[in-house]
């Protein structure tokens, strides 16, 4: 499968270069104020910049060189945080511009009434409005989103989905939605427009990937509150440290009061700048990963909610089982040999291109060694399936008329020819139906030869996927129109936790509501119009891109690959998003321990020489200690940009183990790493005589 939506490596220069420029633009206070942590850094940096200028005129509260060094690194801190955000946005923009290329102003053939064959006027696509009718013929671009009202055509949707194989779009049923920017490859369609220009799926997708409409998600807001509180606490700590220092100096009788520059440096080191600076990038990158998984989400909220899903509702057909039933057994009538039945069934299906027909030919070959024959070679005439006869078959040159079809249709057919449906087969038919299969009868003229058992085939590998969901703590429920017996057998075969049989739209809706009132978060995938109410009710609703417009509108995500098990990836991306935030918050706070050990002795050793004992890293001088902490604080943002863009890896495992692992890496690691980092920077500063 070819994916066109993928974005290149992290260090793609076409993204890096504009990101650098954007990082400068983002220094605008109106932008910074959206992020309280970084806004505090900005104010502090402006303050030290002023102090440096003052120091140049000879009245500095610290040596001008030190103030300049600290100030520069504070500007870098701001710049690096902006750069992270700009990088994340840049990756989104790169995708958006590739999408935008598909949004050309195409001429559209506007019809006066919804039928094929009436005259049309050629208008610009931008002049089309909702409910207009257009004709799209071979080679035409579909001008704007719509619903097929007449016709059937193959459509190349690779511009949207990245999938190069053409798809069929036809009126009625679940494959009636067409998307603007895609191209009709053969035949024609009459389409009713469902979106005004600027409101189409493509437009929506572009604005999503650009992050233009990005709003803070509930979790992000709660985290911002926590980060603000930490910022306030450390603001308090540093502001009150000035009077404490003044008192200490007067009490000790010697030493110097801590300078404002050092206080600002301490403040910036303590407040959670790592997570504060990377927070916007993490959110944008989460959406980005979603798009790379070919899922378009209408809100960040839905992405986040995906991480919390407890229950997953899946439609049976096309999701758990292959879309079509397959022949699994031939059951001959009394007195008929198995080979005769298989032979007749195969003959009747040779020219039958339906999946059921193909599966009969394959079964005959695999189980009974009846090799495929060419219909021309045996001078046979194919009788196709029609809605009236509900049968198909062949008329052979020797006068045999072989038919296969629904049991009822064959029974009527043989009766008409003076035959009768054998009694012994009737019980077989019943048994098959009860077991969840579909019986197809086969007859040769007026003689019924037997039945072919068709059965739902559970998709390969699906059981493992559900097992993975179970390890994540997600319960899977199958939804099917089948009777409970059939449903139970398929659910068991696929390894689902539960099933809802004989499901009507009302029953689905009721099930979701019950789950939700029990406090569960429900995810659902669906494609049909009859799924729409349930999709609208579900917390995370993934509509298949191949589905109807109604389904897509009701859902809060659209899967461009139309792969129902995609929800597993959606859940993982949602979890990754939260985990990245949590882990970096822990890391950021854990870092503070070492910064105290760097800065506090440095700031007060002049007043109380005994405090030199706290300089456990043995940093060279008070100046180098403070500068090393500030430099580490800035550089760690750059170091962690890849992690914030790609996310903390998620593997399904019990919550307790996941927490243990992440605490070890980001908690303990967060305490230890800066001790090493600050010491190294200090050594480098000393080696190059920078302090």
């Amino acid at each position, binding site marked *: 499968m070819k994916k066109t939506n993928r974005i290149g490596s992290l260090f793609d220069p076409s993204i890096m270069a504009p990101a650098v420029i954007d990082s400068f633009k983002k220094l605008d206070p109106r932008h910074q104020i959206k992020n309280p942590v970084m806004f505090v850094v900005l104010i502090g940096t402006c303050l030290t910049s002023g102090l440096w200028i003052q120091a140049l005129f000879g009245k500095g509260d610290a040596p001008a060189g030190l103030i300049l060094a600290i100030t520069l690194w504070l500007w870098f801190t701001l710049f690096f945080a902006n750069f992270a955000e700009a990088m994340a946005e840049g990756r989104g923009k790169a995708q958006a511009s590739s999408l935008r290329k598909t949004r050309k102003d195409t001429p559209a053939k506007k019809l006066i009434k919804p039928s094929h064959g009436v005259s049309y006027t050629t208008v610009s696509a931008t002049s089309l409005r909702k409910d207009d009718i257009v004709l799209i013929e071979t080679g035409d671009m579909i001008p704007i989103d719509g619903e097929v009202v007449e016709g059937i055509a193959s459509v190349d949707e690779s511009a949207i989905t990245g999938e190069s194989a053409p798809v069929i779009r036809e009126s009625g049923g679940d494959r009636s939605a067409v998307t603007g920017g895609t191209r009709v490859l053969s035949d024609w369609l009459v389409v009713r427009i469902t979106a005004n220009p600027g409101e189409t799926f493509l437009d929506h997708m572009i604005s999503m990937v650009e992050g233009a409409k990005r709003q803070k998600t509930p979790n992000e807001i709660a985290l911002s509150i926590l980060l*603000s509180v930490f910022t306030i606490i450390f603001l308090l700590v540093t502001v009150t440290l000035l009077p404490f220092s003044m008192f200490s100096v007067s009490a000790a009788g010697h030493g110097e009061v801590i300078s404002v520059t050092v206080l600002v440096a301490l403040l910036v080191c303590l407040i959670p700048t790592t997570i504060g600076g990377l927070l916007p990038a993490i959110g944008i990158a989460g959406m980005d990963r979603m798009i790379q998984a070919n899922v378009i989400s209408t809100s960040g909220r839905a992405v986040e909610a995906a991480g919390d899903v407890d229950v997953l509702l899946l439609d049976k057909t096309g999701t758990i089982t292959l879309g079509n039933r397959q022949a699994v057994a031939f059951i001959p009538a009394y007195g008929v040999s198995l080979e005769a039945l298989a032979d007749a069934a195969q003959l009747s299906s040779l020219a039958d291109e339906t999946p059921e027909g193909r599966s009969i030919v394959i079964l005959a070959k695999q189980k009974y060694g009846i090799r495929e024959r060419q219909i021309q070679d045996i001078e046979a005439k194919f009788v196709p399936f029609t809605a009236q006869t509900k049968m198909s078959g062949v008329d052979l040159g020797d006068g045999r008329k072989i038919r296969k079809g629904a049991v009822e249709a064959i029974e009527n057919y043989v009766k008409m020819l003076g035959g009768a449906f054998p009694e012994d087969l009737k019980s077989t038919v019943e048994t098959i139906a009860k077991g969840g299969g579909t019986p197809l009868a086969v007859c040769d003229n007026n003689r019924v030869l037997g039945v072919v058992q068709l059965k739902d085939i559970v998709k390969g590998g699906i059981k493992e996927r559900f097992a993975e969901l179970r390890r994540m703590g997600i319960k899977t429920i199958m939804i099917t129109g089948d009777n409970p017996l059939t449903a139970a057998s398929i659910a068991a075969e696929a390894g689902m936790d539960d099933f809802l049989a004989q499901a009507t739209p009302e029953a689905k809706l009721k099930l979701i509501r019950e789950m939700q009132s029990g406090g569960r978060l429900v995810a659902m995938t669906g494609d049909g119009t009859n799924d729409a109410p349930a999709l609208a009710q579900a917390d995370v609703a993934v509509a298949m891109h191949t589905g109807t417009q109604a389904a897509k509108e009701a859902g809060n995500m659209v899967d461009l690959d139309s792969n129902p098990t995609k929800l597993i990836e959606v859940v993982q991306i949602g979890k990754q998003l939260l985990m990245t935030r949590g882990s970096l918050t822990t890391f950021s706070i854990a870092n503070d321990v070492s910064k105290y050990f760097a800065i506090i002795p440095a700031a007060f050793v002049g007043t*109380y020489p005994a405090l030199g004992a706290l300089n456990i890293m043995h940093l060279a001088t008070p100046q180098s200690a403070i500068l090393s902490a500030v430099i580490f604080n800035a550089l760690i943002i750059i170091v962690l940009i890849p992690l914030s863009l790609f996310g903390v890896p998620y593997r399904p495992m019990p919550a307790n183990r996941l927490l243990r692992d992440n605490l070890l890496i980001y908690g303990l690691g967060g305490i230890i790493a800066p001790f090493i980092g600050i010491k190294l920077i200090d050594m480098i500063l000393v080696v190059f005589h920078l302090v």
Partner: protein
Amino acid sequence: MNWNNGIQLLIYLIVLVVVVKPLGTFMAYIYEGRPAGVNVWFGSFEKWIYRICGVKDDVGMTWKEYAFALMLFNVLGLIVVYVIQRFQGFLPFNPMGMTAVSPDSSFNTAVSFATNTNWQGYGGESTMSYFTQMLALTVQNFVSAATGMAVLVALIRGFVQKQTKTLGNFWVDLVRTTIYILIPLALVLSLALVWQGVPQTLSSSATATLLQPVKDSAGKPVIEQAIALGPAASQIAIKQLGTNGGGFFNANSAHPYENPTPFTNFLEMLSILLLPAALCYTFGFMVGDRRQGWALLAVMFLILVPCLVWSVCIEQQGNPLFAPLGIDQQAGAFQAGGNMEGKEARLGIVNSSTWSIVTAAASNGSVNAMHDSLMPLGGMLPLWLIQLGEVIFGGVGSGLYGLIAFVIVAVFIAGLMIGRTPEYLGKKIEAFEMKMASLVALIPHVFILIPTALAVMIPAGKAGIANPGPHGFSEILYAFSSAAGNNGSAFAGLSANTPFYNIALALGMFFCRFWLIIPVLAMAGSLASKKIVPVTIGTLPTHTPLFVFFLTMVVLVVGALTFFPALALGPIVEQLMLNGVSI
């Protein structure tokens, strides 16, 4: 630390753990209205109180109504305490003829007792009449403790109930706590204290003739000594149980009439942690998962026990400055050894150190040794325990609801780290809960750091300092920490009975009590309106050793990061300087 110390500590901790389950279960029965002895025998008395007061005991309150009733009751109580002090000269039970207390001291004391702090800027036996001690102070000892427990119960209901607006009835919780839990326990304890020799009388002070006359500062010979008496046992029992800590006498539990024997010392230390520890079990019982209660208690022990051990070790080690002088500080048959400055010789190192730690942990604030005279790090431990937000045991009720605010912060971070919207006990933790929990964690820090900064800058603040240098800084820091933590213990040394300190400390006590209670109740209201999310394997378990460890780290890290610079300039540098001399 020697064997003797270790065994004493161990016995104390074991007895404490043993009583947690029965007492915790009993309290849960009381709050859930299940029959538990006293509430059957005195049930009609309880109903009679509601009838007299016009309380509709079967009507639930929303969090706002609950908070309003609570504030009304506490502010009225505060005013009554103030008025009684100001008019005690005209009121009965005043055999010593005490006159009105000064306005700023009365205000300070009124706030102090209403907020369960019991900071005492005055000396009890030389300031307060028996009427004031009994009807103003002892009454507040009961109801301020009951207020804290009521808030905790309201918060528990927030977790237990789903999709409701009410949190129970404040008046019912207040009355039940007082008459079924506090009065019976206090009655038993005060009888035990009286048996051991604590006075309980309304007669005026006794006079004794000195065997060996001394001279006073003016050079006149003194031949008689007045021995202060009063209704002490009844107040001491509740001051320990209700984590109040306000002594009847100025010397508090170092006074032989407050704490006459090793047995009373043990009983009083036990009563300090009794209710805060047992309430953890009550919490677990009421939320239907006792492991949750044990987990929170485990967090408390994880912080308490190392502090206890460390404190005893530091004090037993003695003062390094004495070593060059050839002073014997070794424990032996004839002396406890160690740093005995400011300690009662009859109580010794281990009982003084243990008391200093548990009284700080539990927001009790009673003292049996002078914290000012502890070794610098020995004094830092109680100071830091207070600064942790009084959540390691903490005040009755208030300690646990404070710790739950930290739990909210911890599950939020932990929840993010495992990729789920955080939840605790099935309740989703969202922006509103985070805001309220943040306020609970933040407000005490504000009221410790800012007033301390103010006090070290202005003359009125610096005037109170007894010792120069880092120690003087510690004295001020301790005073404001004690007020903000609603602890009430003093570092001593600081002359705090001045208008500046009386008012600044009172404001700290008031806001750190009620600006925490209101967010906690708001959080309870929000939690009660939520659904309960069923547990799956994706749910973060909050009773595991891992979570206990994580929560402990959150409490420690927040406390350490906030106060490390201040502590570095106070006790830490003092200890370093002390050690530096000895080398």
